[in-house]
């Protein structure tokens, strides 16, 4: 039907949203649903363990780790702003700081787990608390790890000089994922360390 050529117009990208953020919102939606199920299971099983250590006996507030993770959201936000302004070197520094803060969080989690397993004898098999705690916190730590790998990839590319102002939108999309991981931690923190104890 060549008569359609009478209405020839190229797609006007400005009036449709960009694909990257839409896709990332969808991914965040799916991940939120997965975390929601683990959170529901955690809440449902509060107080239902038949034996073994209870949360209030063994859990301590991971304040330092939380501050690091929340700060990393700030640094990644700053990094994206810097990249949008074209300041690639400063972007790299801020991005590196984000990675370091995220890594500190992971190390702190691992240390907490080491203490729980070897000193408090709480494993995933011990009781309902152990199962739900390690699953929920572990699922979150897994997402932090995946995020860190992505951030490290960008960092490596920046060091090679492959990253410029034209990649700001993509960096912003990745930072959305990182912010999501942070929000999940806030929820996990409240549910596990505040309500659950």
């Amino acid at each position, binding site marked *: *039907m060549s008569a359609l050529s009478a209405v020839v117009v190229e797609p006007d990208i400005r009036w449709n949203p960009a694909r990257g953020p839409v896709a990332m919102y969808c991914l965040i*939606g799916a991940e939120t649903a997965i975390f929601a199920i683990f959170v529901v299971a955690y809440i449902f099983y509060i107080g239902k363990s038949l034996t073994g250590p209870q949360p209030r006996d063994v859990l301590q507030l991971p304040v330092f780790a939380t501050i690091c993770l929340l700060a990393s959201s700030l640094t990644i936000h700053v990094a994206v702003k810097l990249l949008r302004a074209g300041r690639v070197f400063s972007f790299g520094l801020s991005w590196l700081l984000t990675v370091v803060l995220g890594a500190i969080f992971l190390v702190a989690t691992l240390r907490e787990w080491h203490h729980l397993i070897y000193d408090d004898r709480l494993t995933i*098999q011990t*009781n309902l608390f152990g199962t*739900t705690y390690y699953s929920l916190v572990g699922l979150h730590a897994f997402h932090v790890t995946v995020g860190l790998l992505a951030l490290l990839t960008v960092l490596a590319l920046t060091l090679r000089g492959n990253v410029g102002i034209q990649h700001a939108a993509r960096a912003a999309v990745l930072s959305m994922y990182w912010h999501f991981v942070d929000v999940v931690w806030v929820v996990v923190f409240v549910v596990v360390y505040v309500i659950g104890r």
Partner: protein
Amino acid sequence: MPTESVVKPAAELGTRSPLVERLHSWVTTVDHKRLGLLYIFYALIFLLFGGIEATIMRIQLIRPLNSFVSPQVFNRMFTMHGTTMIFFFAMPIMFGFANYLVPLMIGARDMAFPRLNAFSFWMTAFGGLLLYFSFVGGDGLYGAGSAPDVGWFAYAPLTSKTFSQGHSTDFWILALLVSGFGSVGTAINIIATIICMRCKGMSLGKMPLLAWLTLTMAGLVILAVSPLTAAQLMLLVDRYLGGHFFDTQAGGSAVMWMHFFWVFGHPEVYVLVLPAFAFASEIIPVFSRKAIFGYPIMVAATICIGFIGMSVWAHHMFTVGMSSSANSFFVLSTMAIAVPTGIKIFNWLATMWGGQIEFRTPMLFCVAFLFQFLIAGLTGIMMGAAPFDWQLSASYFVVAHFHYVIVGGILFTLFAAVYYWFPKMSGKMYSETLGKLHFWLFVIGFHLTFDFMHIPGILGMPRRIYTYEPGRGWDIWNLIVTIGVFFQAAGLLVFIANLFRSYFRGRVAGSDPWDAWTLEWSTTSPPPAYNFAVIPGVKSRRPLWDLKHPEDPDWHYE
């Protein structure tokens, strides 16, 4: 974007056979049309596998105390039949049609993320192969191997290591986990494509209903498949890390698995049925020669179904002992969803009203769909009344109901869609005679099987039993149900034969054999890799109607 980015020396080009070239191009494709076709072919193969599993079960049940297969084999058959049909036939074929049609209908050149598209297909494909490997893993084919036998909804604690030793349950978990990632990937792709890549002039209110229904379906996939993924991860923790999520001995809850599964399981059936509605909404108007009646309310009803559909899940759990208030809530939400669904039936009816209906094969299947979906919805309302469900649930009445929806509703519109878009996809016209033969054989078989299947349910026959006692009044009905299977099988054979024959020897179809109105009919059949020579712009919901009727275009009325 060319698929080959490296120029090969002439000598090397000559040594690769054309067949290998063709296979390679299909395996590495990122073109939405080819991926769509791959999904559809894959799904049709699994339709045959699922059909064989159903036939084995029906032969075993043709008379009481039969010994065609052992209970172990039978239990594997019903598990694999359900899992195959839902995850490796119905979902992939719907993704296939969505992939093929959505970019064409919104005037785009491809999906938003072509490589993610390919990745998602191959994940789904691998999941199916993994599931079927269970037949030959372990003991080999003897006794149906290690295929899962826990039912397609895999209730706990039957799935714990205690009651499901060996790896049969693990095949179920892993195959669905893997294909679940593929499903979510496709859903993300669909949403990004529809939101971001519509052509100029096509606001959300001007895109075809198929796009709206596919968009809603993708949203449901994102919200619904994830709970299944989560529950399966929990089950893996239980089975392999000694966890206690569903370990009733340690205080765990079997009912919690049910909640998590059905939070997936019910929206899943809307994932399957919304594309069926999409096909009906595109085909019925064209063959009635009228615009769809009430486009805005059809959109609103779709969104309502999406939302309400997430709140009805525990109507699958009326017998597990929830409180009377919880039961009553789910009665209300289940009844409520009948309202937007009923509205859609009335709108399709109103589209036919005052039209000039041509009963070509796609329309025959759509009219049968209307009749059958009406009945399916009404039996659904019966079971939505919880006390009635206390008798009907887990009986053959339920089995009859959901097959009425899935076969009588969804499969019938799928047949309509295949016939309707086959000319576009292949460039050839199918044989109308064979199409009608397929229709009649299948309608007779369908009604023989699934009308009469309601009766054993009313007479007290539970589901998932490999045999039954004589003297319960179930014998004659089971016999009739099994006979219907052979008519349906015959219909399917005619269908496959029609597709093959028409592809190779059908007459050329041209770009617009149905005198239709949406953008896919404006390009060649089959479309070129780039879909449109020039990206079109539109002014109404039926751009080709506007071009064919310049004196009376749609945008005067919308």
